C-alpha cells in the first residue's frame, strides 16, 4: 500500500497543506524546527489515530484553531481508500471512504505504518524489558492466540507471586496448590516461548538479509533467545526446582517474563561489543524486518517512516538501506541535508523542502 495524497488543516504548524507523494522514496528536507517530524507524525496519526510523541491530543491542533483535520488517500491492492481523521477539543472522529466509523478500532488497520525514530535504538541498547515489550506488541498484532496466552500468563503470574508471598509469611501451606499454579504458568509460558521462537526465526531470516545488504555482506546478524532455566530442560521442570528460593523472595524467577533476545553480529553481542553504527544498523534491520513479517501476515506492505535515521549511518550503509527499500515500500524520511542521500541514491527520490509549515517540491536533486 502507499499514501497517494495528504491534506492537513490546522495540524500543528501546518495551516493548510495539500500534497501528492511518490510511491517510492519521499525525502522531507529542511532546517531544524520547520515541521519535518510533524509531517511524519501526521501520517502516523492518520494510520493509528495516536501519536508516538504525545498523549495529549490537543497538541495536534494549531494554537490558533479549534480543530485539526488529517485526510489522505491510500492506494491498496484492493483499490483506493480515502481516509479522514478529525481531531476536535472533545475527541476524534474517523471516516473510511467518507463513511463515519462508530469505533476508532474499526478504523485502525486501514493504513499500516512502521516508524523508525532515533529512540528505537533502545531496542538494542536498552534493558531486556524493552525487547520483551517490542516482541509482545508486534507478535500480539499478528496472532490473537499469542495475545491471549500473554494475558492469561500475566494473570497466573500475579496469582503465583501472591501465593509465594503467602507461603513466605506462613499464611498458606498447601504445596499442591503451588504445584497447580506452577503447571498452569508453565503451560501458558511454554506456549508463549514456542510462538516467540517461531516468530523470531521468521524475523531473523528477514533481518539477516537486510543486515547483510546494509553492511555490504561483511556482517552476519543472528538472534539468540535467552532463557534462564536453572539447568533444567523445560520451563515446567525449572518451576519445580528451587521453590524454596522463590518463596524466600516471594516472586517467580523463571519464565517468559524474565527472558531476553540477544542480537549477535558475527557472533558477538552487539549490545556490549558493537559500535554505535553497528547498534544502529541492527536496530534498523530488526525494525525493517517487520515490514516483511507484516507483508507475510497481512498480504500488503506497510508504509515506512524514517525520522532522522540516516544522519548516523555512513554513505555505504545509507546506499544499501535505500536500495533495499526502493522498489518495495513507500518510504518517508526526514533529513537536514540532502547531499549524503542524494549522491548515493540510484534513482532520484521525490524531495520536498519544508520551511515554516510550507512544503515546496524540489525538482533538482543536487544543489
Amino acid at each position, binding site marked *: 500500500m502507499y499514501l497517494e495524497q495528504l491534506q492537513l488543516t490546522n495540524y500543528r504548524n501546518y495551516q493548510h497543506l495539500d500534497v501528492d507523494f511518490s510511491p517510492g522514496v519521499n525525502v522531507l528536507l529542511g532546517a531544524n524546527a520547520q515541521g519535518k517530524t510533524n509531517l511524519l507524525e501526521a501520517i502516523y496519526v492518520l494510520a493509528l489515530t495516536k501519536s508516538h510523541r504525545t498523549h495529549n491530543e490537543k497538541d495536534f491542533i494549531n494554537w490558533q484553531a479549534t480543530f485539526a483535520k488529517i485526510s489522505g488517500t491510500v492506494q491498496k491492492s484492493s483499490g483506493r481508500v480515502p481516509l479522514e481523521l478529525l481531531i476536535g477539543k472533545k475527541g476524534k472522529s474517523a471516516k473510511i471512504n467518507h463513511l463515519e466509523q462508530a469505533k476508532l478500532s474499526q478504523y485502525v488497520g486501514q493504513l499500516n505504518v512502521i516508524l523508525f525514530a532515533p529512540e528505537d535504538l533502545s531496542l538494542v541498547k536498552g534493558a531486556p524489558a524493552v525487547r520483551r515489550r517490542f516482541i509482545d506488541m508486534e507478535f500480539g498484532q499478528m496472532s490473537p492466540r499469542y495475545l*491471549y496466552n500473554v494475558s492469561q500468563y500475566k*494473570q*497466573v503470574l500475579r*496469582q503465583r507471586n501472591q501465593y509465594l508471598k503467602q507461603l513466605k509469611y506462613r499464611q498458606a501451606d498447601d504445596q499442591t496448590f503451588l504445584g497447580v499454579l506452577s503447571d498452569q504458568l508453565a503451560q501458558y509460558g511454554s506456549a508463549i516461548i514456542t510462538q516467540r521462537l517461531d516468530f523470531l526465526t521468521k524475523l531473523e531470516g528477514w533481518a539477516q538479509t537486510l543486515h547483510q545488504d546494509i553492511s555490504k555482506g561483511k556482517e552476519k546478524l543472528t538472534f539468540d533467545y535467552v532463557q534462564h532455566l536453572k539447568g533444567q530442560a523445560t520451563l515446567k521442570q525449572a518451576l519445580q526446582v528451587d521453590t524454596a528460593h522463590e518463596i524466600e523472595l516471594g516472586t517467580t524467577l523463571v519464565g517468559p517474563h524474565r527472558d531476553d533476545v540477544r542480537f549477535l553480529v558475527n557472533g558477538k553481542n552487539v549490545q556490549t561489543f558493537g559500535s554505535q553504527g553497528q547498534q544502529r544498523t541492527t536496530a534498523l534491520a530488526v525494525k525493517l524486518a517487520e515490514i516483511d513479517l507484516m507483508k507475510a501476515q497481512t498480504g500488503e506492505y506497510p508504509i515506512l517512516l524514517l525520522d532522522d535515521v540516516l544522519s548516523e549511518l555512513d554513505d555505504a550503509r545509507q546506499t544499501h538501506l535505500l536500495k533495499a527499500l526502493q522498489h518495495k515500500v513507500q518510504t518517508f524520511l526526514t533529513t537536514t541535508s540532502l547531499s549524503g542521500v542524494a549522491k548515493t541514491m540510484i534513482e532520484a527520490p521525490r524531495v520536498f523542502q519544508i520551511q515554516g509549515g510550507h512544503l515546496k517540491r524540489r525538482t533538482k536533486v543536487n544543489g
Partner: protein
Amino acid sequence: MQYPEPIAKLIESYMKLPGIGNKTATRLAFYTIDMQQDDVTDFAKALVAAQRDLHYCSICGNITEEDPCLICRDKQRDQSTVLVVETPKDIMTLERMHEYHGLYHVLHGVLSPIEGKGPKDINIASLLKRLQNDAIKEVIIATNATPEGEATATYLSRLIKPAGIKVTRLAHGLSVGSDIEYADEMTLMKAVEGRQEM
C-alpha cells in the same frame, strides 16, 4: 440543608447495595416514603426473612430454607455424580437445562491468592468429606473458564483422582445456534481443539 435523620439513614442503607450510588439511593428513598404502608412493611419483612430463614446446606453449600436442601434430600436424583460450581446462582442456571439429574456442590468462590482465597477459604473440605461416601463415582467440575477457574479445577482433580473417582470438566467451544462468523478467535480456537469425530 440536611435531610431529616430517618431519610438520611434510609439513603445510607440503600447505598450499601451493589451498583447503587448516592443519587439512585436518594431516588429510591423518596420513592419508599410515598409507598403504601403495607408494601413497606412487606418489604422490610422480606429483607429480614431472607437472611433469617435462609441457610447454607450443610451437605452441598447451596442456599436453602431447610437443611439439607431440596436437591440433597431428593433420593430420585442420581447419587453417583456431583457437579461442582462456583456460586448458588450457577445451580439455578444449570437446573434450567432440566437434563442434569445428579447432585451439586457449591465452592463459594475460586482459588485466588490475590483475593486472599486459598484452599481453606472455599468449600473444598466438605466436598472431600462427601467423597468418602462410596456412592459417588464421578465429579464434574463446572468452574468458569478463567485462569482461576482452571487452577481450581486442576487442584480439585489432583485431590480427587487418587481416590479412584472419575473427574471431568465442562467442554469449551461454540455456543449452540450461533454463527461461526460472530465467534471470537479464542472461542474458535478452543472449539477446534475440542473437535469431535463424526
